[in-house]
């Protein structure tokens, strides 16, 4: 019988709390990037998900994602309402910590993923429609994909595609949903002549909280407090720092000045890209992933978005979608069994093209599933209740029209 280890349990409690902190961190990151009349609305959209998805997760989400397998596609309902999910460890997932702790750790991932999508439809979506969409999306898109990748018996887990901490389930998934949202909800009024971010120090604070939380996200995904956690911890940090530096360097070359916003965008891109690789690559692999993530996401945000012309307001697709896909592919290059015997060897470790092919196939399946279902769900919610606020409400701002509050006063 599996027994609980105090060290592992302590680390996973901390990791769970760190991943929870990422969602308020994201609220500051996004909140700083919007106009002052919408700062509370995006923060509210992030924060309310902590409540909404926590309940969805214990009611049925956890069971759908991690419960006993149905054909490799989805979990069944036997763990709904947390039936049978007690303190006794579940050796299939984490043999040395209470099962409820594993469930809570995964809950925080389920919370932040729909919150990431907020960046695509910020400043124009109705709060009510956002809530309905988020619950449907978590249940029909996130939970099945979490099962394919992480659930025992899940399709992609059985294939051997590698995703250490959720590059596919969290970032590609949220990124593709973000692209669908930007297309379905449409551009903000006045785009692309939108005033610049109203509070960059908030965005920097948010990025710092995300960076801190990501140690729990990636190193916590080792599920034990051992060598693997240390490896993921170091890789996470190196990729973030390298990618921030890369983005700032590109700006310096292309537009003569490195910016704070560019640096934090790079940091987040690096964190995203290293997520699937963090437990499988060496520190030098992480540096390579960080550098390429800075480059690719910079190109996506600065050139691709402008050229194609969608209004992904806060670059949820450009950073999480593009960074996530890049990370999945680069895992196929840099993964090595010298770091993690449970992983696989990629192209650079004499493993050949096999892993890269698997990564590409898993990426494609998840990206297409997420985009198609997200697009359909958004269209459905739009038909039933309307996704967008009225033109007047958009002009006045979502803080006042959706929440009857304003973030800042001038007097008093």
């Amino acid at each position, binding site marked *: 019988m599996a027994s609980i280890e105090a060290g592992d349990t302590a680390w996973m409690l901390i990791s769970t709390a760190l991943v929870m902190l990422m969602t308020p961190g994201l609220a500051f990151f996004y909140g700083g990037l919007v106009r002052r009349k919408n700062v509370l609305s995006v923060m509210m959209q992030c924060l309310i998900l902590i409540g909404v998805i926590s309940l969805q997760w214990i009611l049925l989400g956890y069971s759908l994602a991690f419960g006993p397998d149905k054909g490799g596609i989805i979990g069944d309902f036997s763990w709904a309402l947390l039936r049978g999910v007690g303190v006794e460890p579940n050796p299939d997932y984490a043999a040395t910590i209470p099962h409820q702790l594993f469930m809570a750790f995964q809950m925080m991932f389920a919370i932040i993923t729909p919150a990431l999508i907020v960046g695509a439809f910020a400043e124009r979506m109705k709060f009510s429609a956002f809530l309905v969409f988020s619950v449907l999306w978590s249940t029909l898109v996130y939970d099945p994909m979490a099962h394919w990748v992480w659930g025992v018996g899940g399709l992609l887990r059985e294939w051997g595609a590698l995703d250490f901490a959720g590059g596919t389930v969290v970032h590609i998934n949220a990124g593709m949903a973000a692209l669908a949202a930007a297309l379905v909800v449409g551009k903000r009024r006045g785009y692309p002549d939108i005033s610049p971010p109203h509070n960059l120090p908030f965005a920097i604070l948010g990025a710092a909280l995300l960076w801190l939380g990501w140690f729990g996200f990636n190193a916590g995904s080792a599920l034990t407090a051992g060598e693997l956690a240390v490896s993921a911890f170091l890789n996470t940090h190196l990729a973030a720092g390298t990618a921030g530096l890369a983005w700032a360097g590109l700006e310096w070359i292309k537009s003569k000045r490195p910016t704070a916003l560019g640096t934090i965008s790079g940091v987040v891109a690096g964190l995203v890209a290293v997520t699937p690789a963090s437990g499988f690559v060496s520190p030098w692999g992480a540096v390579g992933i960080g550098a390429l993530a800075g480059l690719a996401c910079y190109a996506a945000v600065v050139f691709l978005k402008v050229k194609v012309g969608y209004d992904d307001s806060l670059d949820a697709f450009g950073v999480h979608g593009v960074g996530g896909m890049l990370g999945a592919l680069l895992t196929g290059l840099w993964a090595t069994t010298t770091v993690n015997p449970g992983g696989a060897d990629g192209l650079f470790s004499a493993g050949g093209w096999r892993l890269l092919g698997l990564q590409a196939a898993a990426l494609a399946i998840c990206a297409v599933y997420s985009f198609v279902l997200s697009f359909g769900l958004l269209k459905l919610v739009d038909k039933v209740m309307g996704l967008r606020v009225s033109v007047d409400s958009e002009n006045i701002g979502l803080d006042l029209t959706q929440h009857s509050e*304003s973030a800042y006063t*001038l*007097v008093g």
Partner: protein
Amino acid sequence: MKYIIAIIQPDRLDDVIAALEEEEIFLLTVSDVMGRGRQKGVAEVYRSHVERGGLLHKIKVELAVSNNKLWQAVDAITRGARTGNIGDGKIFVLDVQECLRIRTGETGVSAIA
């Protein structure tokens, strides 16, 4: 020469600037202000309690124009700011005694635009 002060709703600023541009009036100064009109402000909600009598956020647009541009400017501001609702704001017109461009020392109408 006239000095125009317009107090408008914050969300109308973009439209007012666009309307002024149509009249080829580009020079203006904008500030965030607080104020209230005959309704003494509108109720705001603070932690679920309705608070009355707050000052409301408004935008003050200021510009100086030559006499022959006055009504074009006033019409443009009205066009951009008007929704027909309470709180659309007010326009004040003042006489300007002198205007001087600091860089060149020009004065009068030639300094205004």
